Structures are given as structure tokens and as C-alpha cells.
């Protein structure tokens, strides 16, 4: 193959990589062309390693790169390769009608539940107060929309932690020596002012691990809306969902459609006949993600009813491991809203002692309590 044709193929290869989700910018392609001038084009191994060094920028991209490379350089150009697990760029997505929670709830409602009319209880509570207390599972589609808006408007903030960076502050604990010396230089060696500095504070990162199997799905959909409100307050939020398996959905959520993100993820992690494997999913989280996302004093928020189909002892072990690695472990359980609830299901019972805060999440009021709890998290670990 002549050099010209070869270089054309290289660029085509780079473009193919980009299409399947390995971001390859123009500067990387130019660098690759430069680099190829220094290696033996006839050696497949050298070409492979050169392409890899120039085009891959993360470990996760390596398997995709290998696959595309071996298919591409078999002397036949494949048609658009099957998409891997990478999300497609926004411009490639087709614009279907989103399956929102409103239509979902309407669908469920048609199956037989009587939508309770808020006006029926007029005289005891005001409509707004009723909405506060009404169970999420009993909401009509219109009420659900309203609740969604109210959730966004709650004051979502995560408590702050002290960082190791300093910023000028009048009553700070340390002197700002640079300014002190400058002042001294102006006054013959004696500083007349002593500017101070103090450690900066930053909101803690939040990690949400949500059960989206069976009945937990609707609660999780509502709660994952939190991630927007928090992101606006400059809190780092990472979101994971699980059923029988765990997957990370943070990047998909950034595209602003919670329902679509969950639908896509559900196909991968929810096994309609298989029940929920909380322990195994948390194990997967602890092994693969905990080290990367729980740093910097993060708060972990697990949303699940605790009905475990796997080994309860495994669940207990993994919850303990999770608690050790985060600043605070908050478990949201819709069943906890029922009066007289005590964790009796085998899974919850075993894990309950390793949970810092076991909170209900069945109505708007409970969410206000959650917001208050999150905002109140302080510096020290109090267990």
C-alpha cells in the first residue's frame, strides 16, 4: 500500500474511533501523523503502539481501541462498527419522544390504582400541605409534575469540609506572610498590619447509588433529579444505579434527561426475573469505583428498600466497607416512612448497624428532612 493511501487510512481509522466514542481531536490526529514519520510503517506492532500512544487517553478506551484496530487493519474497511458501551455524542442521538415519569405513572394508574383526588380532603389540610404528606406511589401525574418542581426548589446543599488551601481572611488562623513582609518593607522592617488567611471550605462530593429494580424505580427516578440541583450548587455528584448489576450513569445524567438515562441503564442492570442483588452491586461499587469517587470526604447516599435476593451477609460486609470509606453513609428507604417500621428484612437487618442515617423517602416532607440532614453535615466524623 502506498504511503499516501496508508495515511488516508490512518485518518479514516482515527475517525472511526471517534465515531464509536473514543474522543479523537484534530490535534491528536496531527500528532499521530507526525509520530508515524519516526516509526517503521511496515511493522504492524510499531504502528499499533504509535496509534495507541497518540489516540488513547484513558484505560477504558483500550479494549475498544484494540477491537477497532484489529478489525480495521484486516484489509477490509468495516461499515460503521457496532457501538460499544460508550454513549453516543448528542448530535448522533435520534430525537424520539422521551418516556417521562409522567407518562409512566399515567400508564401505571390506568392499570387499576384509584387516583386519590386531593380536593376530597379539603377542610383538614390545605392542598399544599396534603401534597407534602402524600405518598409518592399515590400521586397522580399532575401532582407528580408538581412534586418534581418542588423537589428542584428545595434548598439542596451538602455540608462543607475543610480543604488544605488557604485564602485571605480577616480573622484567619495563619498569617499571610507575603503581605506582612511587603508591609514591613514599607515601614523599615516593622509590619504595621498583619493580614491573615484561613483554610477554604468546599462542599462535600455526593455519591448516589440508586436501586432501580421493581418498585424502587419510581423513587429513584425522583431522587436522581437531585443531581441537577446539587450540581448547580457546585457540589460534585456521581450517580450509580443497580438492579442485579451496577452501572455508572453520571455522564448520561448530564445530558439532562433523567428518564432516558435510567431507561438505558435499566436495560443493562435490571433483570426482571432476577430480583435485586444489593450486596453484589455494592461489592462491584466498592471494588471498581469507591477509590475513585469517595475521596475528598464524600457522602454516600444509597436508595433501596433492602429486599435482598442474594446473601445478606455479603450485603452487611459491603455496607460496612462502604461506610468505612466515606464520610457519612445515608440510606434512603421508602419503607422507613411507615409507622412502626423496623428493619426486619434479612438484608436490612444485617446491614443496619453500619448505616449512619436510615431515612424515609416516601413523601415530600421526608425529602425536606433529607435536605436538612445533608446541609448539616459538618467537618468531623461523628459515628
Amino acid at each position: 500500500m502506498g504511503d499516501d493511501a496508508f495515511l488516508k487510512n490512518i485518518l479514516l481509522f482515527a475517525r472511526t474511533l471517534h465515531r464509536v466514542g473514543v474522543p479523537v481531536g484534530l490535534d491528536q490526529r496531527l500528532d499521530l501523523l507526525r509520530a508515524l514519520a519516526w516509526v517503521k510503517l511496515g511493522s504492524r506492532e510499531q504502528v499499533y503502539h504509535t496509534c495507541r500512544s497518540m489516540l488513547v487517553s484513558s484505560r477504558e478506551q483500550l479494549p475498544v481501541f484494540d477491537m477497532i484496530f484489529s478489525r480495521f487493519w484486516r484489509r477490509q474497511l468495516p461499515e460503521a462498527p457496532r457501538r460499544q458501551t460508550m454513549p453516543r455524542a448528542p448530535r448522533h442521538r435520534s430525537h424520539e419522544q422521551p418516556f417521562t415519569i409522567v407518562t409512566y405513572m399515567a400508564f401505571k394508574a390506568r392499570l387499576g390504582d384509584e387516583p386519590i383526588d386531593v380536593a376530597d380532603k379539603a377542610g383538614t389540610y390545605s392542598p399544599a400541605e396534603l401534597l407534602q404528606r402524600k405518598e409518592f406511589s399515590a400521586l397522580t401525574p399532575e401532582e407528580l409534575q408538581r412534586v418534581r418542581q418542588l423537589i428542584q426548589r428545595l434548598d439542596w446543599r451538602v455540608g462543607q469540609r475543610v480543604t488544605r488551601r488557604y485564602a485571605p481572611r480577616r480573622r484567619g488562623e495563619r498569617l499571610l506572610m507575603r503581605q506582612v513582609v511587603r508591609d514591613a518593607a514599607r515601614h523599615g522592617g516593622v509590619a504595621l498590619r498583619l493580614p491573615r488567611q484561613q483554610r477554604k471550605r468546599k462542599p462535600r462530593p455526593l455519591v448516589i447509588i440508586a436501586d432501580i429494580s421493581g418498585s424502587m424505580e419510581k423513587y429513584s427516578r425522583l431522587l436522581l433529579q437531585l443531581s441537577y440541583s446539587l450540581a448547580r450548587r457546585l457540589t460534585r455528584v456521581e450517580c450509580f444505579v443497580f438492579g442485579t448489576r451496577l452501572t455508572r450513569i453520571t455522564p448520561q445524567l448530564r445530558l439532562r434527561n433523567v428518564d432516558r438515562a435510567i431507561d438505558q441503564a435499566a436495560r443493562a442492570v435490571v433483570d426482571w426475573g432476577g430480583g435485586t442483588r444489593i450486596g453484589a452491586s455494592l461489592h462491584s461499587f466498592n471494588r471498581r469505583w469507591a477509590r475513585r469517587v469517595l475521596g475528598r470526604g464524600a457522602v454516600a447516599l444509597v436508595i433501596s428498600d433492602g429486599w435482598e435476593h442474594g446473601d445478606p451477609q455479603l450485603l452487611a460486609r459491603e455496607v460496612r466497607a462502604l461506610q468505612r470509606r466515606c464520610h457519612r453513609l445515608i440510606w434512603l428507604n421508602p419503607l422507613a416512612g411507615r409507622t412502626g417500621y423496623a428493619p426486619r428484612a434479612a438484608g436490612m437487618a444485617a446491614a443496619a448497624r453500619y448505616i449512619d442515617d436510615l431515612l424515609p423517602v416516601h413523601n415530600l416532607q421526608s425529602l425536606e428532612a433529607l435536605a436538612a440532614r445533608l446541609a448539616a453535615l459538618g467537618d468531623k466524623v461523628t459515628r
Partner: protein
Amino acid sequence: MLSSIEATAEALAREAYIADPGLCTSLFLALRMGKALLLEGEPGVGKTEVAKVLARVFDTTLIRLQCYEGIDVAQAVYEWNYPRQLLALQTRHDGAEPEEIYSERFLLKRPLLQAIDAANERAPVLLIDELDRADEEFESFLLELLSDFQISIPELGTLRARHRPIVIVTSNRTRELHDALKRRCVYHWIDYPGPEKELEIVRRKLPGVGERLAAQVVAFVQATRRQDLAKPPGVAETLDWAEALTHLSAHELSPALVDATLGMILKYQDDVDTLRGAVAAQILAELK
């Protein structure tokens, strides 16, 4: 200047560092293009070693910046020697001019400034270790530095590097580095070595270890990496273990010996509990 991938591999081998073709390629390209080399991988796979070896290959100094959370300009680049400055201001010889306190004499040069010091005779190797421990503000500062290799000190002026340092950045991946930084560097993921390579590393680094013991140690560690552990052992652990066993005058592994010394390769009690006893004996049996 290394002229090819093969030359790079040879130069590294002469300094007892065995690199796979991928790493040699990335290193060669990084040097040739004047870009930093970003090494990501599990702890203990030899990321820091690369920088040390490079310093020997090019017969130059190794300047190391160890990153941690909250590291900022004062620890990484420079700080004024405040006590000395204050003293200079306060002790004035009569009639003499006051000393210029914003001069190099009062400047404490930290690693990044040392790396671009014009007084360097030749380009040093600059190792920025564990960048993932630093925060994002520091990362953006570093990004600027890696493009122009100059530092502005308000009272002194702009200091530029006479010889651009060879930059190696490492990360243990406790957080994702920003795309902009990754694009400024040549990225390379270092994996655990394969059995032959790891055995070769043990032979080179610890020539006194018996052949049979070395082979067993490597095979055992390779097997433990396939277990479900919180922290699989790195190459550093393999070497430590082999050395320790040699000090204990062991010639081969036995279940009792493994149980007693498991702490040399596993750093989490949970992992030790998982492996000690039956599982370790099983692995050992399969090796034979």
C-alpha cells in the same frame, strides 16, 4: 537524543528497566515531540521507576514533585524566605543601601522552579508524582506551566527554562485527570507485568535470589492478582517478598511460610484473611 523505539528500549534495558514495546513507544514519542509522558496505573507497577531510570539514561538530575491534596504554588514552585527578608529589613548597616529583598538570594526554589532554573547545565528529568492527589486548581496551573515552561514571579519577573525538562507525570487514578491535561501529554496505561517479565525483573533487581524461589514467588503473586482482592500486590511487593524470603534462607514456598509472610504482599487485613490458610495452600498446590 534517542533516535528510535529500539534505541529507547536498549537504553532502558542497559539501566535494568524492562519495558514493553508500548511503553517504549510512548516514551520515545513523548521525548521526540517534547511532550510530557503521563503514566497511569495501579500502585506498584513501576511508574516512578521510569523517571529514575530516565535520569540515569540521560545522566541528569531527577527533580521530584510529590503531589498531595492542597499543594499550591508555595510548595511546588517558590516561596520567599520571609524570616530572612524581615531580618534584612531590620538590620541595616549605617549609610549602606537597603538590600533588595526581592532578589534570588531570598528566593526558596521548590521543585518546579528548580526544573526550569536557567542555571541547569542540561535538561533535568522532572517527575510530578501522584498528580491525582492534587486538586483541580493545581492541575490547571500545571497545564499552563507545561505549555510555556516559564514562571512569573511578580516581584522578580518571568523566569524561563534554558533547557526544557523531560517531564513524567504519574497518577494512581484516585480521580480522573482533566482532558486538557491528558491531551497535553502522551498518555500511557501501565498494567501489571506478565509472568516472564516479572521474573526477569526479579532476576535483575535481586540477583541473589534462588531461581526456584524466584519462579515460585512470581507465580504465586500472579495468581493472587487473579483473586478478588481490595488491593492486589504490585511489582514492588513481589520484590520485597522475594528479598524477605531470601533473608529467611528459604529455597521454596511452603504453606506455613506463605501464611507467615503474607503481609509482605497484602496490605489490607481483609485481603490477608481472605487468602490465608486454605486459599493460599490451594494456590500453592496448583503451582506445583
